[in-house]
């Protein structure tokens, strides 16, 4: 036990004396979560639009005022003809133009139908789509108010309600995703690098010719990173909770348990990488290409798994991160207990055991 403690102490010296690993350990998680939370978002705010009002009557003025007062849009200017639309878009500031047909109020009364056309700049398709939806929402809202005033006819209206994330805040998706990426990166990459560093510097040779058992060396190498990864997970959750108002509806204890399970599975992957690479560079490339990319692309963090082609969906099943993201979202947003996520948990446990067994089998007690 004394040997083990001595070994861990040495590991902490390594970590705290290396500015680069300190930065990866603590700087990156915070930077990433803030970046994803603030900068990379699907929400729109203060989009500049232009209005082309052919009728210029009471109703159109009311709708325009309504739009002006919403936080999503900023009416940049009023244009006079269709010909100006393109030149507005080309200037780049205006992202959408709302066109009211002539005789808007009259049509609304006589034909019961009046048309507003939303023309959007689709060079950024997602933004364009979102603007169109938001516009529709604002006008629907106006209609609703109007209808309440004059109950004239029965009309079936589909109203959707978003459960668990009513405002469709993208940060609710990013916090679990970033947490997964960070834990994977810190755990797998850092351990594989720290083990291969011993190989590269030749100290592994001395460690092998010592009474330390392989098991003790591995656990000693990995232990500090378990500890640091848990701190990282907590920091990310605190940032999510306090800065981005991400709720934690489920049990915090269960969340921590699942996080530790995921950390251990990532660490065992890191050990596995270190057994097959001889240099720190190889270990880093393997971790980045072999782990980070699949984690980002195939875990459902950024691209929904359901809309992937079938082979990709099948491959995504072997990515531990996929299961962890499902678990974290379920606990944090739906507030479910273990009875709803035991299957995912079991998959994660199975993977962890497999990776640990494989890396112990692959660990070399000699130099070749």
């Amino acid at each position, binding site marked *: 036990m004394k*040997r083990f403690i001595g070994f861990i102490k040495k590991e902490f010296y390594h970590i705290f004396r290396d500015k680069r690993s300190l930065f990866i350990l603590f700087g990156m998680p915070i930077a990433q979560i803030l970046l994803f939370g603030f900068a990379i978002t699907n929400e729109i705010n203060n989009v500049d639009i232009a209005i082309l009002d052919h009728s210029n009557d009471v109703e159109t003025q009311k709708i325009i005022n309504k739009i002006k007062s919403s936080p999503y849009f900023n009416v940049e200017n009023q244009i006079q003809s269709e010909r100006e639309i393109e030149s507005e878009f080309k200037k780049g500031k205006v992202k959408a133009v709302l066109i009211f047909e002539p005789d808007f109020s009259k049509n609304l009364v006589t034909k019961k139908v009046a048309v507003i056309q939303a023309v959007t700049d689709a060079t950024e398709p997602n933004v364009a789509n979102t603007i169109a939806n938001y516009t529709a929402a604002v006008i629907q809202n106006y209609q609703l108010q109007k209808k309440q005033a004059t109950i004239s006819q029965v009309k079936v209206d589909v109203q959707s309600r978003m459960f668990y994330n009513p405002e469709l805040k993208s940060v609710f998706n990013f916090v679990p995703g970033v947490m997964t990426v960070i834990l994977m990166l810190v755990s797998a990459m850092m351990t594989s690098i720290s083990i291969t560093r011993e190989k590269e510097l*030749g100290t592994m040779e*001395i460690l092998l010719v*010592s009474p330390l058992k392989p098991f003790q060396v591995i656990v000693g190498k990995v232990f500090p990173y378990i500890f640091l990864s848990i701190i990282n997970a907590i920091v990310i959750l605190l940032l999510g909770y306090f800065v981005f108002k991400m709720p934690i509806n489920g049990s915090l204890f269960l969340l921590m348990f699942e996080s530790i399970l995921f950390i251990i599975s990532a660490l065992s992957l890191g050990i596995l990488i270190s057994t097959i690479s001889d240099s720190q560079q190889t270990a880093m490339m393997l971790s980045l290409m072999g782990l980070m990319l699949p984690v980002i692309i195939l875990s459902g963090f950024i691209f929904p798994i359901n809309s992937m082609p079938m082979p990709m969906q099948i491959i995504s099943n072997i990515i531990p991160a996929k299961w962890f993201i499902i678990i974290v979202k379920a606990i944090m947003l739906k507030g479910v207990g273990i009875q709803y996520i035991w299957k995912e948990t079991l998959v994660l446990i199975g993977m962890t055991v497999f990776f640990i067994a494989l890396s112990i089998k692959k660990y070399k007690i000699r130099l070749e």
Partner: protein
Amino acid sequence: MSIKVQNISKSYKTAKAVKNVSFEVNRGELFGLIGPDGAGKTTLFRILTTLLIANEGRASVMGFDVVKDYKAIRNSVGYMPGKFSLYQDLTVEENLTFFATIFGTTIQENYDLIKDIYIQIAPFKNRRAGALSGGMKQKLALCCALIHAPKVLFLDEPTTGVDPISRKEFWEMLKRLQQKDITILVSTPYMDEASLCDRIALIQDGQVLKIDSPENIIKNYNKIIYDVATKDTHALIHDLKNYPSQYSVNAFGEYIHYIDKESDFNTKELQKYLQNKKHINIEIKQAQITIEDVFMDL
């Protein structure tokens, strides 16, 4: 018998590193493996420290088989690899404490053994190992290899890249350790260090050429070597090589070591020959034979 090597052979993918090597090291002996880079010294060390498995042959350390009883060997030997292999980002004291801890001991417990060496690096005990000079690094590495009081010490080229004074000190330390009943197997490419060992094995291209004490190796050398010097060394080498009865010509410091084939070789004839070749300041005298001369002739 502390170390026993029997017909060991080891090949890597492309090359045969060690070919049918056998030797024995007695208890308390300071045994040197002498040979140039690439002779197979490091491979032999790694086989004996259980880091590599030989393709053929058997070896044992303190009676433990290097393959079967590798754990017992790892518990009891001290090993200093060729490359400086301590933690550069840890201080001198932290390195030593770490190695003491993993061997289940403390610095205090075996301080006697390392005292002579440690007091030399003690003034720098709070300095990171990476910032030490070459000689200091070697001393620290030796301390770390000794901290658990091993019965057998493996030192793979401990003095490579170390200044001459530190090298001399290092060998004095080894002599003192030997007195404490520690068997030492040391390798070096420096021929001058060979004479400091009790016995040496001359090794080249993975083969042992000769095993004996340095004195015997020199004593049993049956050729006479002459130191030859003239003003123009470059021309001298050329002319000596063209001398009809020359056996070998090797530059050796300020002299050329010359060996003749004939038993009735006469220095006067050589002198005359060199004078004819317009050499001046000619000096010819019988040389002290060194291990290097023997090695060159093998």
